[in-house]
């Protein structure tokens, strides 16, 4: 039986440099970074990507108080995506709507806050909040969305380190194709800047970005790159089977062409370019495409000295047989590493390329690292290209999880 065609019909997002797709895209084309600095508990000021959306647009103050930052980001993005898709939930069977959100981690923020709280009371646990458990269960952000929307279908998160944003979309595609749901709200979210532990962990790993100018701190492929800028954000999509979207006359952003998720099985932290290349190749094959069909590659590169080189090696290996390379860019140079949101946000920033055939650049490349100098890199200035019919989006994560998602131009 042929697989259902799955299409994207709505986008809602919040990024450090934009609270709508239009604003985000405009800033990506104009070279506007969203990175600022924040006071990190115990650690002083560090570069970070923070979002400025208004949680009270879709939540009551009490729900913001009880819930989590990840929940507020998720609700904002989900509501924006539904509005963008023109979907009225009241007219739908809410038990047939699935919510699938990719997360790198969840619960660190809330646990750290409570440990800090009881530290102010001599570590007496009678001051530990009863909200801790519902805030820290792993399904929490998706559960907050279902509470806010009143959807009664499956709502859960997919834990996949920094590959998670892609996995939200991939999982939604699978559930729609299986007929488990009729409509999916899916993507990835991150509240990671609120946890000092992630900053401290990367610092101990010598992988935390530092720069006098925070907008220059995230600089993938640049010779002077020195680590990751930790960011929050979210990108959530509405996905539907093509026939359902067509029946209601939905606007269609693109079609899920293919994907792959695999594992390095080599190290807790260090990436494996062979498995990354294999992930990209398998995704292209899954899409029924060849390397010639890919027009735009959005890299995962996080601005770490070693990781960027390894991804460049993987991409160069996959596309070396092409006479003209695909355009290759990176979104983290603008927004830092939005962790569980990264894959989903970075895809969103590139979707408008189907319409304008412009590829946003990777910024902050003052001196290209020769080891990252692969054909096709779009550096510092946007590039107009002849064709954008297929976008390949890489997202990789710790414990060796790799994900590649390919979106193609929609053609009825």
């Amino acid at each position, binding site marked *: 039986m042929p697989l259902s065609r799955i299409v994207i019909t709505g986008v809602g997002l919040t990024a450090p440099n934009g609270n709508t797709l239009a604003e985000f895209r405009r800033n990506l084309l104009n070279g506007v970074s969203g990175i600022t600095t924040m006071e990190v508990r115990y650690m002083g000021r560090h570069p970070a990507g923070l979002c400025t959306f208004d949680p009270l647009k879709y939540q*009551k103050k*009490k729900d913001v*108080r009880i819930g989590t930052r990840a929940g507020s980001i998720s609700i904002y993005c989900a509501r924006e995506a539904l509005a963008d898709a023109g979907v009225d939930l009241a007219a739908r069977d809410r038990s047939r709507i699935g919510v699938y959100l990719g997360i790198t981690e969840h619960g660190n923020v809330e646990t750290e806050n409570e440990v800090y709280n009881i530290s102010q009371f001599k570590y007496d646990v009678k001051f530990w*909040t*009863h909200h801790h458990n519902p805030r820290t269960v792993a399904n929490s952000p998706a559960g907050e969305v279902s509470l806010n929307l009143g959807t009664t279908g499956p709502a859960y998160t997919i834990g996949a380190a920094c590959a998670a944003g892609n996995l939200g979309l991939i999982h939604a595609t699978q559930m729609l194709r299986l007929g488990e749901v009729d409509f999916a709200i899916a993507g990835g979210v991150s509240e990671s800047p609120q946890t000092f532990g992630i900053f401290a962990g990367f610092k101990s790993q010598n992988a935390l970005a530092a720069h006098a100018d925070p907008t220059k701190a995230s600089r993938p492929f640049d010779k002077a790159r020195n680590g990751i800028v930790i960011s929050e954000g979210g990108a959530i999509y509405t996905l539907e089977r093509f026939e359902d979207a067509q029946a209601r006359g939905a606007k269609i952003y693109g079609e899920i062409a293919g994907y792959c998720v695999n594992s390095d099985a080599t190290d807790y932290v260090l990436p494996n370019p062979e498995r990354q290349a294999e992930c990209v190749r398998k995704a292209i094959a899954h899409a029924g495409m060849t390397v010639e069909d890919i027009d735009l590659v959005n890299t995962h590169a996080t601005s770490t000295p070693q990781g960027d080189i390894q991804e460049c090696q993987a991409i160069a290996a996959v596309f070396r047989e092409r006479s003209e390379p695909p355009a290759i860019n990176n979104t983290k140079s603008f927004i830092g590493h939005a962790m569980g949101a990264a894959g989903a946000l970075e895809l969103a920033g590139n979707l408008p390329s189907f319409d304008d055939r412009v590829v946003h650049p990777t910024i902050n490349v003052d001196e290209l690292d020769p080891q990252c100098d692969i054909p096709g890199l779009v550096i510092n200035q946007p590039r107009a290209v002849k064709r954008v019919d297929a976008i390949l989006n890489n997202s990789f994560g710790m414990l060796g999880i790799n994900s590649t998602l390919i979106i193609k131009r929609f053609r009825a």
Partner: protein
Amino acid sequence: MTKEECKKLVIDIISDIAPDEDLSDIKPEIRLREQLQLDSMDFLDIVMELRKRHGIEVPEADYMRLASLESCAEYLLPKFNAARA
């Protein structure tokens, strides 16, 4: 401390626990849950804030004493005064 001062401290806590509610016209004799969107989890938060801010303990068996603003004041006033003594 007077009863009115005690009520004001309770309202200060409720304004944080139920920030969407209009607290300008609470009827002291009427149960708080009949006037405001408060559930049992919110009462746990009120109990926690009394503990954190004022060092006052409210045993579970006494939760019903927090039903109205008036009953709060009657029950909590001696505790506030004891805590401040």
